[in-house]
Structure formats: structure tokens, C-alpha cells
């Protein structure tokens, strides 16, 4: 297969959560001469990204160098910070919110790697800690919240604006995309267990309550990551759970009661919360994000794939940074396609 320099490279992005859509936008911005089609069986508001609270408080991936994670987080923060300071903020579902991350015991690492990426990071004062009698240490900072139900449609608009196509279809096998597409970007999250035969990816079930409590203006996060209160544009997310290997998408009423109780312990005014809605999302968890190229081969058929999935609880927090990196990998694939191959190899 030879590509002239003017030939359009046809790219399929599998998955329409935050990874698929943001990668599609990055590719359309940065890689010339491509056509992009986003293919997914689920779209907003039915993706995992729609359930996520979208707080920019990043996790730590054990298998990834800290510098790299910091770069991903910084790229994402900078991208969303530019949006939040523009008139588009409300359309894109990005807001600024201040609050506290609280610890029951003094952490070994008092200042996390991302402290200078968020705004105004400092340790909590004694007076601030009085609000949380069970906790002895805390961080105070201002960060961003990026809400799937607004952000994903905003990204979709940008994909269509760059003449990208959006297709509803369930892909059972990546080879289905051959030969209609030249490069596949795999952003299928947990779907990669099947689509990429990746046994390293597993769900970490998260149940949350989205409630009305508009008087809550600050986020509160217990450092364990199990209990959190995240005020958003039109509701407050109360969480949560981290149930490894649990694929169950139905909410559990007992768990909801328990989440509410843990959150009320941190913020008693939540007893007045109303209009409680239960949601469940399965975090696509992996020891590290899979960001790499793979050349699928079957007989004489070749299909370049860029994998971009496995962000666990850090999807929204890292999405733009990893999308930029995935785009660089896509660009490399495009360069290879456009480089005339020696005839003997064909």
C-alpha cells in the first residue's frame, strides 16, 4: 500500500468517551491530511466519562515515571484552564473549585508531584483542620472540574467542526476496520479486554450519588480516595467506592446509604441534600496507561493501531496530555504510511 503525500489518511477512533473524543480533536488539530471517524456503541451521556466527577486531582500510576505523569496532568490542566478563563467555560462544562484534601495521618509525601500544577497549593492551617476533627493534615488548593455531560458534547462539536464523522457501531474486532481505515486509535477503555486481548485491564467499580446541595462550594476529598464531595455546575457528586474486578453497573442501595453517611460525616449540611441520584461507572484500570503503537498483522494484511486507554481513576485528569501523546504516535504512523516502502518488501 503506498500513500502519496496528498492522499488522505483515514483514521478510525474507537470509543467516544473522553479519550476517544479528545484524541480525535487533537489529531484533527495537529495531523494534516487525515479524515477522522469516531466509532462507538456508546456516546454521551452513557459513557464512563459521564459518570466521573471530573476533578483534576490526579492519581499516581505505579508503572509510569513521575515526570511523565506530571506532564500529562500539566498539559490537561493548562488546556482546561484556558477554557475556564474563556467565555466557553460553561458550554464546555469546566469550572474552578477550591477545597481540601484531608489525611487521617501525616503522609510520607507531604507535597504531591502535582502541587505546582494546581493553583495556590498550600498545607491547611490549624483553624481549617478544625472543621475535620478526625483528620490531622491537609492540602488546600484550587483546581478544575471538567464535567462529561457538557464536555463530551463540546468535544463532539469540535470533531464535527473539523469535518470528522461520528458513527454508532459496536466493534467486536479491530480487523473490522480494515481496509476502510488506515490507522486505528483504540480508546475503548475496558473494551480493550476483548478488542486488544489485554488481560491487564480490569474494572474498578465506582458508585456515586449526584445530589442537589448548592450551598456546598468546596470540594472535600479524603486522601484514601474513598470519600469525596465534589460540587459541580448543577449538582454535587458524593462518593464513592473502589471495587476491584466488579463489573456490576447497577447501583446498590446499601452502598448509597453508606456513601451518604460517610459524606455527611465530613460535611453535615449534606443531610439537607435533595434529589439524590445513584450512578455507577467502571474505571478502566491498569498498572499504567497503555499508550503505544502496535502493528497488527494477519497474513498479508497490516493494521497500525495506536492504543490509548487504561487511565483508571485519572481519565479526566490526564486526558489531554495523553491525547497529545497518542496524537504524536498517530503522526508517526502517518509518516510511516507516507514514506515510500522499498518495493522488495511488498
Amino acid at each position: 500500500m503506498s500513500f502519496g503525500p496528498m492522499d488522505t489518511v483515514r483514521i478510525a477512533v474507537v470509543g467516544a468517551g473522553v479519550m476517544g473524543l479528545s484524541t480525535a480533536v487533537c489529531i484533527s488539530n495537529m495531523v494534516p491530511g487525515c479524515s477522522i471517524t469516531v466509532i462507538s456503541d456508546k456516546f454521551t451521556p452513557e459513557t464512563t466519562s459521564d459518570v466521573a466527577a471530573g476533578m483534576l486531582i490526579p492519581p499516581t500510576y505505579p508503572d509510569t515515571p513521575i515526570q511523565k505523569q506530571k506532564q500529562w496532568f500539566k498539559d490537561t490542566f493548562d488546556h482546561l484552564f484556558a477554557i475556564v478563563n474563556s467565555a466557553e467555560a460553561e458550554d464546555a462544562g469546566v469550572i474552578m473549585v477550591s477545597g481540601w484534601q484531608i489525611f487521617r495521618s501525616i503522609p510520607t509525601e507531604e507535597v504531591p508531584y502535582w502541587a505546582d500544577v494546581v493553583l495556590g497549593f498550600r498545607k491547611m492551617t490549624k483553624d481549617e483542620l478544625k472543621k475535620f476533627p478526625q483528620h490531622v493534615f491537609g492540602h488546600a488548593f484550587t483546581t478544575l472540574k471538567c464535567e462529561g455531560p457538557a464536555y463530551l458534547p463540546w468535544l463532539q462539536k469540535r470533531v464535527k467542526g473539523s469535518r470528522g464523522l461520528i458513527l454508532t457501531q459496536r466493534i467486536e474486532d479491530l480487523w473490522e476496520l480494515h481496509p476502510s481505515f488506515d490507522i486505528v486509535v483504540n480508546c475503548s477503555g475496558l473494551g480493550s479486554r476483548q478488542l486488544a486481548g489485554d488481560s491487564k485491564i480490569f474494572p474498578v467499580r465506582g458508585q456515586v450519588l449526584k445530589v442537589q446541595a448548592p450551598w456546598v462550594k468546596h470540594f472535600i476529598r479524603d486522601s484514601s480516595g474513598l470519600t469525596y464531595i465534589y460540587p459541580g455546575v448543577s449538582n454535587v457528586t458524593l462518593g464513592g467506592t473502589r471495587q476491584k474486578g466488579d463489573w456490576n453497573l447497577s447501583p446498590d442501595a446499601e452502598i448509597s446509604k453508606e456513601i451518604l453517611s460517610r459524606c455527611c460525616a465530613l460535611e453535615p449540611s449534606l443531610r439537607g441534600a435533595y434529589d439524590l441520584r445513584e450512578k455507577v461507572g467502571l474505571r478502566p484500570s491498569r498498572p499504567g496507561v497503555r499508550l503505544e503503537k502496535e502493528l497488527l498483522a494477519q497474513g498479508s494484511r497490516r493494521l497500525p493501531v495506536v492504543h490509548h486507554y487504561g487511565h483508571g481513576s485519572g481519565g479526566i485528569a490526564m486526558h489531554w496530555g495523553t491525547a497529545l501523546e497518542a496524537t504524536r504516535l498517530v503522526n508517526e504512523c502517518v509518516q510511516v504510511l507516507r514514506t515510500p516502502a522499498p518495493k522488495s518488501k511488498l
Partner: protein
Amino acid sequence: MMRVVVIGAGVIGLSTALCIHERYRSVLQSLEVMVYADRFTPLTTTDVAAGLWQPYLSEPSNPQEANWNQQTFNYLLSLIGSPNAANMGLALVSGYNLFREAVPDPYWKDIVLGFRKLTVRELDMFPDYSYGWFNTSLILEGRKYLQWLTERLTERGVKFFLRKVESFQEVAREGADVIINCTGVWAGALQPDPLLQPGRGQIIKVDAPWLKHFIITHDPERGIYKSPYIIPGLQATTLGGIFQLGNWSETNNIPDHNTIWEGCCRLEPTLKDAKIIGEWSGFRPVRPQVRLEREQLCFGSSNTEVIHNYGHGGFGLTIHWGCAQEAAKLFGKILEERNLLRIPPSHL
């Protein structure tokens, strides 16, 4: 029978009534407290206020006012952890004070929580400003709080009367032993006070639930409250920036609306998507110092005690509880002087 009449049903009147009833009901043989006002919530000046706890930047000429501000903050902060906080109109809120040049820290910097200067990246969000503060403070929404105070007072048997009081004498003649004068900007109608003036404000309330921080700008050349401010409340967000000394016009006007709208949209461009809920004007009861003192008035053969508690400018909610406590103290002195205390209150 001790008959107390509180004139005025804004935050000062109702909180003073509550403070007095809480402290002295149990130590008096009988205590009757009545509230007379020609305006009740939602028509009081308190209802127009955004409700952010924040004193003026410069130290007050009466140092007691600084103490009253602090007492109020600490009192409200102690209620933050209660499940009732939102019903009272009370919530924690953080935000920005913005300046065009470096200024000294305010005297209240250790009263609020987490006070610090703004970082460069934070200031980048506000291109018209080059210096500022970040801190966590409290919102006490006037309307909700007055409703809550009214409930607490009603539970205690305090009675409310819609009437326009024309003179202290009229109230004294009806048998009031002590009159608490919380008439705010209209105090001059009961007793001329050349130091008291209206500081007219106009505000726009919008629905902008994505805004979680207050943003208050300062322009020292123009003066306090004459520069745009955005204050999120428990449900709606207040936009303001008007302060007109001596203006008694209670109607909203278009030039002020435009000043507020343009100033606030410049500060926060997303406001263009905000739905306007309503617009109101009110008169801050401006005075060089709060008038919080006793006065004995002679009507015929009897003496009537008056406790004045008015002139709280643009910081009524900020200072109210400290003043209510002080007024209660003055009331206690009256009781002592008249040998009315059954049990000497230990904490006076």
C-alpha cells in the same frame, strides 16, 4: 413584667431580639419581647445584601467594631458544622479580593481562614488587576437568615407587629420599658442623626451555579463597593458595585444596571450565559461609627431606656452578632440597675 420593644426587623433587630431573649428569659420573672417594623423580610435592607462576611479594608475608627466582627465570624463558623447551616443561609465560601496595586494586609486576615496573597498564575485570570488575596470566609444570606431568626423568635413567643413607629414616645406610652432601636438607615426619622446617611446600592441576582468563588474588586480612588463584585450565594449569585452616598432612590435605574453588568461580565465572561433572576436597590445605613449605646428618654414622669443599635453601613451581616451581644450586655446593665435580675447572670 419587663416589656421590650425592638423597632426594626432586619438582621440587627431580629438578632438583637434573639440575643436578649436567649440570655434573659430565664433570669427574669417575666419578659415580653415584641418586634415592631414597617418592613419585614423580604423587604428589608438585609434582604438586598449579598451576605458575604467581610469587613471594610481599613481599621474601624471604633476598635470595638473589629471585635464585634470577629465575634460574629467565630459564632457563625461554629455553626458551620451543624446540619442546619444551609437552613440558616450559612455556608463557607472562598474567593478573591483584587487590587490594581499592592496593599497592606487587612486587619481581619487572621479571622478568616487560609488568608494568603494571590499567585502570579491566579492573577493572570484577572488582566485588569495586579495584586490580590485569597481566603475562605462565610456567606450568611439575608433572606434565609431572617426567616430562620423569625422562626427561632416565634418559637420563643416573641410577637411581630407590622406598624410604622412615628416616635419613641408613642412606644413608651404604650408601656415599653426598654426600646431597642434597630431602624437602620431610617433612624433619623425617630431622632435626627446628621451622621447617618444612605449608601445606596443596587444589585443584580443571577443564576450562575458554575461560579463557586466570590470575586471582589477594589478601586481605592472610587471607594468601597464602587467597584464590581460577584458573590455566589446559596442558590443565586449577586452582582454589584454601586455605592451612592446620599441617594434615597429606592428604584433600580438603568445606568447602574449597566455599570454592574458590564463590570461583572468583564471580570467573569461566563456571566453572559447567566439568567437574570431579579434586581434590587437598598440603602446601606452609613455612619462613621455604629451607634450602639444607651439613652434615657424622659416622657412625662417616667424614664424609658433606649438602646440604639444602628448605622452598620455595608457590614451589617458581618458585625451583627457582636453588636447583638453588646446590646444584650447593655440590656443586662439596665436590669441590674433596676434590681430585676432574679439570678445574677454569671457570664455578663
